[in-house]
C-alpha cells in the first residue's frame, strides 16, 4: 500500500550533552549561543517514518517544525535522514518562547488535514519541557486514534499495529488509519545523517508558512512565572548504628 503519506513533527531543542544554565532574571534557560539539535525522540520518529518509506509502505515523508528561522536546520537534518520535503511554520523568536503543546497540536492538526496524511509521527516528549502532551492533544483535535510510547510499529493494510511500553509492561494496539504515533526510546536507532545525504537534502524543498495561514491562534493561556535551578544536593550524614539512624530520622521529623 505505497499510497500512504506520513507527517513527522520535529522540535529543535538544546543538545542533550550541554550543561544548561538558568538566565539570571529567572525567565528561562539560557539559549543564546548554546548548541541545539533535534530532539532525540523526534529523531527516532523520523527514522521510523523513513524506514517505512524504504520498505515501500509509505510513499512520502514530510517533516514539519514550528518556531523561529533556526528550525530550518532541524528540518534539514530530517531531510538528510530521508524525509522528502519540509514545512517550516514560522513563529518569531519572542512568540516561540510561549509555544506550548496545545498551540503546536493545533498547528499539526490543521497541517495533517491540509496535507491529507495517513500517519502523524512525533517523539513521545521533548527533552526541554518533558510535556509528553503534543501527540495526544493532536490526536484529540483530529479525533484520530493514537499509539503513544511506541516501541514497535507494523503497518497492516489500512491499520497499524503499535506495541506500547507502559508501566505495567507491553500493550499492543491495532489502530485504524489515519492515526497518531509517538516514538519511545526503543523503537529504533536513528541513522547518522551522512554527508552525501546532507548534500542531497539541500535540493529538497522547505515550504515556509505562517500559523495565520492555517487559521491557528497561538495565544497561550500559560505564562511562566520563574525558572530556577534545583537546590544544590547537600552532603549526606553517615551514622554508625541503626539506633543512631532511627534517632536521626526522628530528629529531622521523618518518623
Amino acid at each position, binding site marked *: 500500500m505505497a499510497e500512504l503519506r506520513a507527517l513527522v513533527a520535529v522540535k529543535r531543542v538544546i543538545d542533550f550533552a550541554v550543561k544548561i544554565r538558568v538566565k539570571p532574571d529567572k525567565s528561562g534557560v539560557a539559549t543564546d*549561543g548554546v548548541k541545539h539539535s533535534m530532539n532525540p525522540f523526534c529523531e527516532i520518529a523520523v527514522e521510523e517514518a523513513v524506514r517505512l518509506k524504504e520498505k515501500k509502505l509509505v510513499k512520502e515523508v514530510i517533516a514539519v517544525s514550528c518556531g523561529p528561522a533556526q528550525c530550518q*536546520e532541524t528540518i534539514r537534518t530530517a531531510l538528510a535522514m530521508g524525509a522528502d520535503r519540509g514545512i517550516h511554520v514560522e513563529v518569531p523568536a519572542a512568540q516561540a518562547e510561549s509555544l506550548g503543546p496545545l498551540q503546536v497540536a493545533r498547528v499539526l492538526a490543521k497541517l495533517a488535514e491540509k496535507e491529507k496524511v495517513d500517519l502523524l509521527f512525533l517523539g513521545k516528549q521533548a527533552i526541554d519541557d518533558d510535556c509528553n502532551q503534543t501527540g495526544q492533544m493532536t490526536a484529540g483535535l483530529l479525533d484520530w486514534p493514537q499509539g503513544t510510547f511506541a516501541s514497535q510499529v507494523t503497518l497492516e493494510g489500512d491499520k497499524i499495529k503499535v506495541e506500547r511500553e507502559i508501566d505495567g509492561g507491553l500493550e499492543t494496539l491495532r489502530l485504524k488509519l489515519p492515526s497518531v504515533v509517538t516514538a519511545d526510546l526503543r523503537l529504533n536507532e536513528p541513522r547518522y545523517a*551522512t*554527508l552525501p545525504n*546532507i*548534500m542531497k537534502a*539541500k535540493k529538497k524543498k522547505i515550504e515556509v508558512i505562517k500559523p495565520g495561514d492555517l487559521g491557528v491562534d497561538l495565544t497561550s493561556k500559560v505564562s511562566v512565572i520563574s525558572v530556577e535551578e534545583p537546590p544544590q544536593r547537600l552532603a549526606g550524614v553517615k551514622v554508625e548504628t541503626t539506633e543512631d539512624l532511627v534517632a536521626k530520622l526522628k530528629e529531622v521529623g521523618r518518623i
Partner: protein
Amino acid sequence: MSGCRLFSRRAAAVAAAATAVRASRVPRVFTATHRPLHTSLRSCSFAKELFLGNIEQKGVFPFPEVSQDELNEINQFVGPLERFFTEEVDSRKIDQEGKIPVDTLEKLKSLGLFGIQVPEEYGGLGLSNTMYARLGEIISMDGSITVTLAAHQAIGLKGIILVGTEEQKAKYLPKLASGEHIAAFCLTEPASGSDAASIQTRATLSEDKKYFVLNGSKVWITNGGLASIFTVFAKTQVVDSDGSIKDKITAFIVERDFGGITNGKPEEKLGIRGSNTCEVHFENTRVPVENVLGEVGGGFKVAMNILNSGRFSMGSVVAGMLKKLIELTAEYACTRKQFNRNLSEFGLIQEKFALMAQKAYVMESMAYLTAGMLDEPGFPDCSIEAAMVKVFSSEAAWQCVSEALQILGGSGYMKDYPYERMLRDARILLIFEGTNEILRLFIALTGLQHAGRILTSRIKELKRGNVTTVMETIGRRLRDSLSRTVDLGLSGKPSVVHPSLGDSANKLEENVYYFGRTVETLLLRFGKTIVEEQLVLKRVANILINLYAMTAVLSRASRSIRTGLPNHDHEVLLANMFCVEAYYQNLFSLSQLDKYSPENLDEQIKKVSQQILEKRAYICAHPLDRTS
C-alpha cells in the same frame, strides 16, 4: 655590487637541487580540490614577496571569507560527524588492536568521508579546500582514521583528480569516492625516502607497446594492505628532446587485479597504530599504457604537485586536536588540587595553557588563510605557504601534547588516559609528508631562488645604468642608513590591520624589511653555494614561518574585530602575544645570519659533528680518567 654571482642561469641548478631535495615520504597529505591541474600554475606570491622585503596584501588581507551558503553547509556537516566520532569511535581499542574495525570503516564510507574532494559528478562530495580543512578538525579525533582517510584521498587518488584523463576519472573515481576501493600512494622505497628522485622501481614498455611491466618494492605504504588501487611511481626510459635516452619517473594507476602485487606484513608502529602500513612488492605487474597518469616521464612533477597541494590541512587537523586537548586538560587542572589549591592557580600550569591556546590560534589562522588562498580561482600553487603550515603545526603538536601530558603528571604517562596515545600519534607529523628538515630547505630555497631571479635582473638594470632602478636603490640605502621607521602599508591604514594590533603590525613590517635586506646579503655572500648551507637555510625558513604566522594572526584578528565575533579581545591578546614573541625570535635569527656574528655557532657545530661522526662515537675522555 659588481662581480656578484647571482642566480640567472644558476637558478635552474638551484631549482633542480631544490626539487630533488624536496620530501616525498608521504603516507598522508591533504591536497587541492577537484580542479584539474594546469601545468602553468599561478603562484601564491605572498611568501615569495617576503623574500624581497615586500608584504603582498592580495589574498591575505582581508582574511578570506566563505559564502553564507558554504558556511551553512559546513555547519550542517559538523554535527553528525562529531557525533559519530564521539559515540562510535573507540580510539583506545583501535590503538591497542592495531586496526580500525571493519564496521567503523564501513560507517566512514557511508558518511561520505572517502570522497570529500572528489567532484560530485564522480560520486564524491566535491568540497573546497576550506571545507576539507574544517572536516579535518573533527576527523582528527582519531589519528589512525585521519591518516587512513588522508592516504586514500589526499594522496592515494589525488593524482587521478589532478592529472587524470576523463576516461581514468570516470573509470576509477566513483568506486574510490564511495570507499568500495581504497587507494594508496606508492613512492617511498627502502633506499629512497627524502631523495624521491632516486627510486629504483622500474616500468619497462612491452614489445607491442601496449603495456608496461612493473618491477620493484615500495616501503611504508599507508593502506598498502587495504588498497585495490595504487598510484605507483617508477622509472621509465624516455627519449629526450635531444635524442638521448634518460631515466625519468612516470606515475601509473595500478590495480591490484593486474597481478604480481604482494604485501608485506603490517608494520608495528609507535603511533597511528590503527592505520595499515606495509611493504608493497610489484613483480612483473602488467600495467596498460592507458593507465599512465599524466605524461610518461612527468611523474616527478605529478608526485610533487600531489604532495604540495594537500599539506596545509595539517594545520586545521592539529588545531582541532589541540582545542579538544585544552578542554580535556583544563577540566583536570581546574579540579585537581595540590597544596590546597587548584592546579589552575599555579603560574607554571597557566603558562602551558597559554602556549596551547596560542599555538592553536596561530595554526588555525595559517591553515584557513592558506586554504582560502588555494580556493581562489586560477589554481594557485601555494606550496611554500602550505609547507610552512605543515612545519609549524607538526612541531607545535608535539610540543603541546607533551606539555598537556606534563600537566597531568604521572597520570598523563598512563595508558588509562589518552595523552600518551596522542603523543605517540603526533610524533609522525614531523616525519611524513616531507620531513620538516626537507621542508625547511624547500621553503628557504624556493624563496631565495625567486629573490635571486628578481635581484639578478635588478643588478643587470643597475649595470645598464637604468635611472629609476639606480634612484630606487640609492633611496633604499639612504633610508637604511637613516634608520627610518618602516612602512610597508599595513599600519596607519585602519582598514588593513586594526589599530589595536598596530604595534604588532609595525613589528611585522620591520621584520619583513630587514629580512628582505638579509636575503640580499645572503645571496651576495653565498651565491649558488647557499644550497649547501643548511644551517643558514634553516634560519631563513624559521624566520619566514614566523612572518607568515604573524601575518595570518593579524589578518584573522582584524577580521574578528571588524566582524564583531565573540571574544575578539582574547584574539587580540593572543595575536599580539605571538607577534612579540615571533618578532624577537626573528631578530635573533637575523642577527645570527650576519657574517661573523658572535651568536652564530655554525662553525663550531660543524666541527663538533665532524669529530664525532669521524669516530662514530662520543670522543671525550671519561671525567674520571687519568693519563698515567
